[in-house]
């Protein structure tokens, strides 16, 4: 056995080298090791030219209906319009070194711009920004830092992109109330800044919509809850179900997989859900809209700054918040794969026109949304009082739920 | 030139590494019973498989009535009127007798089987040849002898003129054998031609007209039975003189070695007690045979005795030690050696080398291991010693993978291993099954040597000749019970046959067992 395996492997090598040598397309001398840092030789095919823009996928696939897909759509849209070669690379393992190795590979492949969607790349990009000073990195939803969080540094070649979640949440809350709902729910995951911002925006959006509709004080009830995790589990589903049974018409599910629990509860209760991050209408019929981050839009804008407007300095070396002004947040306005469809078809009254009106107000600054408030509790769970006082809620009555 | 109904001329058939048939010629006359004699592995089955279309010969030709024919598969053979009763029946267990007979040649009307036509024809044949059967019985419910009749009827139903019987008597009782031989004679008188494969010389002398002998794939010759003798035939078969009678001294029985009391064994397969209330003793220096037709509880009894299965009640004592609940290893240490019925299933690890198999019962002893590491030098040395002592032949000596060895040498390996191991009782189940005369002779002499050296031997055999020759005492088992006990000198094969088939049982024993 030993012998035969050793021999087997040896024979394969011989056999394949024969195959390789007889192949007319590929002279043996061309075999350059990829890790020596040279771009691979052009073997003639259009797609074999190496690539200029590379996206490293986070855990999960390119069609994850989340960060990977959203940002890749932006890369594709821009690169195809401009005729720039592009490629995505899947890390061999989901670890900081795995991500870094994928970046290495992308750079070896000739990448001048590397898009890294998601905060999981923070450490890898921190390393890569020094390692490849000539390569530009677009880090979405994160800022580069060391593994132990002791040093945060965004070098000149890195654009750290964050999103104004409060505006997105504002639009969602606004839409729900304008659609005629009076009993809303919020289920955040853990009280991390992004989730908090979504929640605060949601409440402010509901408040303003109620005021606009001329509703009486206290006519909107919001149940406000942090699950304390980002999981799909039975507790989360039970909580959502209880909220629905208590009369809640829609829950803004804002915490990763919590959404699945909420959708499942909504399905059984014949109620509605507002999705988060990306357009989640495709996950469940119960999702009426989603408070999204404009992943594609932000990627395109940064790429524009590199290739067309020569304004990389606007993004490089710092953290940029994407908001309504630069199409960085919003509710979905199109249905993927169906050009003519109405993305607002799951609302009963609320329309695209109303949305655009509100959106314009966010853009021109006539509406300002508060992103953070002071919370006493170390968990970050705000009390109803804190919310009401600091967000200036009148029409909206908040009940927190532990 | 004589007229032969079937001629196989200069047939050569090779398998990788072996020439199974080397230039063999066999000529079958119309209306004769032609025996084909040879040791195991002599090439009989291969030759018949060539005739029946299961193998294609590389050289030579087959003629029917002088015309060259091509037999590519059993259907071709059937079309030429050649039928075969295989050693292992090819019947569908949960079909009826009638359905099995007509299988493949069902008379049909627009796709519907017309069983009445078939039934008439089957009954007609059955009456004509005295092969009475119940056409509606399920195969699984009828005896082996009856199943053989079904196989024979299958051939007759297809109007076969050339009938091949492959070792047909191996599974039958003496009475059934006599009956079968008469039926075969009847066929021959009808003008059918019969090829009778066997290694039992008595049967050939009794029924055959001529006999062709093969040895090691080669054709030795064809003789007229009336001009020959058993001794001459066996010499042709083996190539040397064979003694049929086992030489042995008078028994000198000593102390009780094995004592079995009221042992019952439940068969989970048949959902009933396969062994019922069996009691007997074996003394040192004694060979006790358990005779009986296969399937009457012998296997289950041996399993319980050797520890492969649990007994439901009763006790087993070996040299005074209670081993009823002992593990197999404990029994082995207590002095039990076991030559198992199925050497491939139990006796050997076929993919192990010969030396590894030769220490299968002893690898754990300090002679062969040290702190869990096997002493391969000692194993090899011991294996070479056994190979030499018991004349175990193989291509690469101790290194040989046992699977590649011949059945006889595999059996020799087992016997050497079990005999050489320290023991008081040797349980040998069908130790000579499927072996050639030379090997049988050798094994018999070993068993007698064991007995003479003061060991106890418990032999389970379906071969009455063997039972009569070897034993000092015979126990007959029928349906899980001991129905008779005999001294070989005071009984004969016919009497044993009656007990084995349940036609007779010892009234004294009956009373003993009548308690239940």
């Amino acid at each position, binding site marked *: *056995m*030993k012998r*035969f*395996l050793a*021999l087997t*492997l040896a*024979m*394969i090598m011989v*056999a394949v080298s024969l195959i*390789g040598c007889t192949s007319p*397309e590929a002279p043996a001398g061309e*075999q350059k090791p*990829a*890790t020596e840092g040279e771009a691979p*030789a052009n*073997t003639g*095919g259009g*797609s*074999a*030219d190496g690539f200029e823009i590379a996206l490293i996928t986070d*855990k999960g*696939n390119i069609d994850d209906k989340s960060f990977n897909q959203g940002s890749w759509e932006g890369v594709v849209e821009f690169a195809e319009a401009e005729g720039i070669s592009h490629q995505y690379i*899947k890390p*061999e393992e*989901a*670890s*900081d*070194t795995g991500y870094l190795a994928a970046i290495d590979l*992308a750079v070896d*492949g000739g990448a001048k711009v590397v898009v890294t969607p998601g*905060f999981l790349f923070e*450490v*890898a990009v921190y*390393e890569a920004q020094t390692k490849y000073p000539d390569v530009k990195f677009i880090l979405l939803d994160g800022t580069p830092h*060391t*593994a132990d969080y002791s040093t945060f540094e965004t070098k000149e070649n890195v654009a750290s992109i964050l999103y104004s979640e409060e505006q997105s949440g504002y639009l969602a809350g606004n839409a729900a109330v304008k659609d005629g709902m009076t009993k809303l729910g919020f289920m955040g*995951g853990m009280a*991390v800044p992004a989730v908090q911002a979504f929640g605060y925006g949601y409440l402010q959006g509901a408040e303003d919509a109620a005021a606009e509709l001329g509703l009486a004080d206290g006519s909107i009830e919001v149940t406000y809850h942090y699950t*304390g*995790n980002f*999981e799909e589990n039975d507790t989360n589903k039970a909580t959502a179900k209880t909220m629905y049974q208590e009369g809640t018409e829609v829950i803004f599910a804002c915490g990763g997989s919590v959404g699945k629990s909420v959708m499942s509860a909504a399905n059984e209760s014949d109620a509605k859900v507002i999705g988060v991050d990306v357009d989640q209408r495709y996950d469940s019929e119960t999702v009426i809209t989603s408070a999204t981050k404009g992943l594609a839009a932000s990627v395109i804008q940064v790429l524009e700054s590199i290739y067309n407007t020569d304004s990389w300095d606007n993004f490089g070396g710092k953290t940029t918040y994407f908001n309504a002004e630069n199409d960085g947040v919003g509710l979905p306005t199109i249905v993927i794969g169906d050009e003519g469809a109405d993305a607002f078809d799951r609302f009963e009254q609320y329309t695209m026109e109303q949305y655009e009106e509100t959106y314009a107000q966010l853009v021109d600054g006539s509406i300002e949304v508060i992103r953070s408030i002071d919370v006493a509790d170390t968990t970050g769970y705000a009390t109803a009082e804190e919310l009401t006082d600091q967000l200036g809620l009148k029409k909206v009555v908040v009940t927190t739920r532990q | 030139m004589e007229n032969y109904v079937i001629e196989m001329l200069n047939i050569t058939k090779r398998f990788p590494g072996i020439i199974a048939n080397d230039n063999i010629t066999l000529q079958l006359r119309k209306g004769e019973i032609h025996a084909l004699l040879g040791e195991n592995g002599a090439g009989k089955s291969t030759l018949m498989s060539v005739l029946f279309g299961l193998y294609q010969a590389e050289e030579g030709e087959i003629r029917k009535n002088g015309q060259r024919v091509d037999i590519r598969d059993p259907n071709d053979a059937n079309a030429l009127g050649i039928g075969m009763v295989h050693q292992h029946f090819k019947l569908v267990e949960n079909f009826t007798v009638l359905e099995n007979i007509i299988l493949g040649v069902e008379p049909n009307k627009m796709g519907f089987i017309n069983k009445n036509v078939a039934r008439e024809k089957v009954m007609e044949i059955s009456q004509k040849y005295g092969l009475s059967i119940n056409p509606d019985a399920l195969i699984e419910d009828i005896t082996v002898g009856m199943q053989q009749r079904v196989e024979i009827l299958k051939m007759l139903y297809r109007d076969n003129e050339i009938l091949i019987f492959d070792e047909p008597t191996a599974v039958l009782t003496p009475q059934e054998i006599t009956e079968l031989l008469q039926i075969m004679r009847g066929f021959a008188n009808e003008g059918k031609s019969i090829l009778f494969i066997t290694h039992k010389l008595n049967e050939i002398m009794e029924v055959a007209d001529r006999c062709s002998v093969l040895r090691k794939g080669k054709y030795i010759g064809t003789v007229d039975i009336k001009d020959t003798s058993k001794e001459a035939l066996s010499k042709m078969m083996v190539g040397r003189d064979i003694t049929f009678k086992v030489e042995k001294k008078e028994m000198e029985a000593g102390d009780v070695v094995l004592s079995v009391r009221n042992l019952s064994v439940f068969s989970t397969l048949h959902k009933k007690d396969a062994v019922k209330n069996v009691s007997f003793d074996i003394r040192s220096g004694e060979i006790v045979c358990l005779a009986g037709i296969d399937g009457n509880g012998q296997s289950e009894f041996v399993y319980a005795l*050797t520890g*492969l299965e649990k007994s439901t009640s009763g006790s087993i004592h070996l040299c005074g030690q209670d081993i009823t609940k002992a*593990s*197999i290893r*404990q029994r*082995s240490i207590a002095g039990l050696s*076991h030559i198992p019925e199925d050497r491939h*299933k*139990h006796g*050997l*690890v076929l993919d*192990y080398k010969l030396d590894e198999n030769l220490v*299968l*019962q002893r*690898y754990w002893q300090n002679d062969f*291991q040290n702190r869990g*590491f*096997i002493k*391969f030098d000692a194993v090899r040395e011991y294996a070479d010693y056994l190979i030499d002592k018991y004349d175990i032949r193989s291509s690469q000596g101790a290194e040989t993978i046992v699977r590649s060895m011949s059945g006889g040498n595999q059996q020799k390996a087992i016997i050497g291993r079990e005999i050489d191991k320290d023991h008081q009782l040797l349980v040998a189940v069908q130790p000579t099954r499927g072996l050639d005369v030379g090997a049988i002779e050798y094994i018999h002499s070993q068993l007698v040597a064991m007995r003479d050296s003061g060991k106890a031997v418990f032999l389970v055999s379906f071969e009455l000749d063997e039972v009569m020759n070897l034993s000092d005492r015979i126990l007959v088992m029928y349906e899980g019970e001991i129905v008779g006990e005999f001294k070989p000198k005071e009984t004969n094969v016919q009497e044993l046959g009656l007990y084995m088939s349940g036609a007779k049982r010892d009234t004294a024993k009956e009373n003993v067992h009548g308690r239940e």
Partner: protein
Amino acid sequence: MEGNNSPSKNKFNINQFLKKIGFGSFVSALMAIILGLVFGYLVMLIANPNSATAGFRYILFGGLQRKGDVFYFATPIIMTGLSVGFAMKMGLFNIGASGQYTMGMFFALYVGFMWDLPDGIHWIVAILAGMIGGIIWGLIPGVFKALLNVNEVITSIMFNYIGMFLVDMLIQGNGTMYDPIRTRTNYLPGSSLIPSLGITGSNVNFGIVFAVIIGVILFIILQKTTFGYELKATGHNKFASEYAGMKGKTNIILTMAIAGALSGFGGAFAILSPSGIAGSSMTYEPINIISQAGFNGIAVALLGNSHPIGTIFSAIFISHIQRGGTLTSLVGYKPEIIDVVIAVIIYFSSFSMIMSSYLGKFLTRIIKHTDKDDNSNNAKEA
């Protein structure tokens, strides 16, 4: 192939050679791998004809430039491959390697996070803890099989799920181990990480050294000890092993426990890998997915014919083509296509082992035939 002009002489050599090395298994393994590669190449041709040759060359040779990574990624699948192969020697199908692997990871993580041990000892204890986790998860199906005759395949599959959910639950419930914001474990303390072998650009660590040592130890156990003798005998013919008085039940339990230990080691080696980035480490993400490493172990064991040394080579081979496969991104292959190509290669390579006997016979016949022709020619000449 190239010796067509001097057939008889050549054949003579081939025959001698083949006899020497054990003809059937060698040729069939070789053919299997070549067959797998050919199909992989075909898939690449279909997916992207222009880059197929360049891409295929990466698959074949790319790994040579990434030796560190080849060994690094081979480590866990060597262990699960050994685990599956070892049980297979006994005739048991340890499909539960994934669960044992995950348990090994958890135990290693637990010791890594929760026990404060000095440098140089911490990681060793963590590895041993991983082994114990694997043992527990292998032992239970073994006990079920031995005492209650429950098919180990069923129990193992169930234990894959139980183990995975249990570990996910335990990790999420542990504030020290779990980082709820990133929904995965925190970085392990440096003292609990296996020392790196110091190859730049790769996390390859002493895990591979241990894996190879363990493989050799298994080889010795199987070949030299009474336990190995009993184990293989049972695997070949459990009736004969019973007849020989071997303790079948004890051996089943022991074998499954050892198989579990091997997978547990695999989990520990994987999760305790050092990181090239200071302060970083591997993390475990409790996302209710059964680890792939266990199933890859089945392919590895099949390809290595359950032989410990063969398993090491087959794991390295698989890791080699995977590492090369990753590089095909450079010539425009999408990761998904590469996954398909790698899967096709592995699948054919492993699956064809099952057909090996047929293939072997087929080739034997061809060679025999040509031999016979030669002989007859010679005879005529004579």
